[in-house]
């Protein structure tokens, strides 16, 4: 299977190609530069694999949560390519990609994945190592304050993501002894989006380009003014 993935929901920008079990990736932490970087990165991974678009089976993208504009860049890129090349799309959670990296690296059962959501909140998701080693979501992803995050009582795991950099104290206090290692410097990357995407695609999960849409989690983005007389 050949699957191309992009992840641009945070400060990091990346593209990756999953090809016959091998993963080729381009990754760069470059805030505000995703619009310049992402297409050349895609070209680079395809070139390195010696593949043409026509040889791909599917696309995957980090559907969020994350920076609204960032998530929309990945969404738009994938919609455009999928429409042009007639490819199915697999939406992959940005928090899941973050969690997968930690699971691959550390021998723990749980991951507390967390991305800074600004405005005093974080995007939060608890993931568990599944039978095949892939991250499985426990409960639901949410946007909330660090002092309110939910987690299974009997879990023990690793904390990862930019939310940890900012709210390490609050989160550590809340999770207590459930917490093992903490990675404060990790961003979601397309290599993991590709891996999760390939697995989901194998299970028959994909959507047409117009249904490849962001998951923002935060939806109260504007206040209606009080109607005046």
């Amino acid at each position, binding site marked *: 299977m050949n699957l191309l993935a992009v992840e641009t929901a945070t400060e990091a920008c990346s593209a990756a190609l999953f090809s016959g079990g091998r993963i080729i990736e381009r990754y760069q932490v470059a805030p505000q530069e995703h*619009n*310049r970087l*992402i*297409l*050349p990165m895609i*070209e680079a991974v395809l070139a390195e694999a010696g593949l043409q*678009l026509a040889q791909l089976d599917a696309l995957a993208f980090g559907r969020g949560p994350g920076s*609204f*504009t960032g998530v*929309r*860049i990945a*969404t*738009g*890129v*994938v*919609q*455009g*390519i999928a*429409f*042009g*090349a007639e490819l199915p799309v697999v939406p992959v959670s940005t928090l899941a990609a973050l969690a997968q990296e930690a699971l691959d690296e550390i021998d723990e059962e749980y991951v507390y994945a967390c991305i800074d959501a600004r405005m005093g909140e974080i995007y939060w998701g608890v993931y568990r190592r599944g039978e095949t080693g892939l991250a499985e979501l426990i409960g639901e992803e949410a946007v909330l304050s660090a002092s309110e995050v939910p987690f299974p009582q009997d879990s023990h795991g690793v904390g990862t993501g930019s939310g940890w950099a900012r709210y390490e104290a609050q989160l550590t206090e809340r999770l207590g002894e459930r917490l093992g290692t903490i990675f404060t410097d990790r961003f979601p990357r397309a290599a993991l989006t590709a891996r999760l995407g390939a697995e989901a695609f194998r299970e028959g999960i994909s959507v047409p*380009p*117009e249904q490849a*849409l*962001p998951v*923002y989690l935060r939806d109260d*983005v*504007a206040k*209606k*003014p009080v109607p005046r*007389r």
Partner: protein
Amino acid sequence: MYVLGIETSCDETGVAIFHSQQGLLSHHLYSQVKTHADYGGVVPELASRDHVKKLIPLISRALSAAGIDKYRVDGIAYTAGPGLIGALLAGAAVARSLAWALGIPSVAVHHMEGHLLAPLLEPDPPEFPFIALLVSGGHTQLVEVEAIGRYKILGESLDDAAGEAFDKTAKMLGLGYPGGPEIGRLADEGLAGRFVFPRPMTDRPGLNFSFSGLKTHTLTTLAATSSTRQDKADIAAAFQEAVVDTLLIKSQRALEETGLVRLVVAGGVSANRRMRKKLHEMGREKGYRIYFPRLEFCGDNGAMIAYAGCQRLLAGHAEPLEIRARPRWPLSDLLPP
């Protein structure tokens, strides 16, 4: 050459297919007016979210309405600015990536160049050079247009744009959003001459505008009445007359000063019926030819972007593999293709 045009700079998702010889083949517009009406103005984040949902279905529709397959498209034109950064990026990401996937060139179009060239989509288009009066939600400019990409700004608004003035005044009168069309309708019921508003900056030389003072004028005038529907209609008529006259006086001045004889009017406010009538009359009287886009191409649309982009693509325009979005982008920075 078949060109797909994509516009997402603000609150309309516009898509069109233009052919360099056959002309406009199809155009579709999804307006978010209803989404933003409750907020009394455009909410940028909601605008971006809507573009992402609407764009691909609109592209499909525009292609089938034009009777072509996507593989027939020779180039993609998309609005890269000026506009709302999130909204621009939403369209640009799809447009640039689609062009890359199809292996065809793309062109980042200046939104105001799109507006300015919109009258060239009409059957009897103006020849260059001409004066363009750009009147929209964010711009009020008089431009000397020598050719495509040769723009000299002769004057512009020092504060509110004409469309913005319409919108703000409408709000004061308790009308809905967007205010321009609402004021136009209400003004039809108004008594001409009951109130007379100033024609800002027309008593001194120069081609700049200032519309923000009219707001205060509206407020004080309204406060002195009992705010009946008739009072408001009379105020709407006075306000509209003042804006239209001001635009007319300065446009005429620009024509006189440059010796040009053609005036192109474009942008959302160019849909204003009173303005179309008065400018046509002025043209007949003074021997100028006045050009407007058809009503549906006064506001934002994909057709004008497809047209403007096509002119640049025909000249061999090619750009790097980069999704371009430039929220602030002076028209005078443009170069000929």
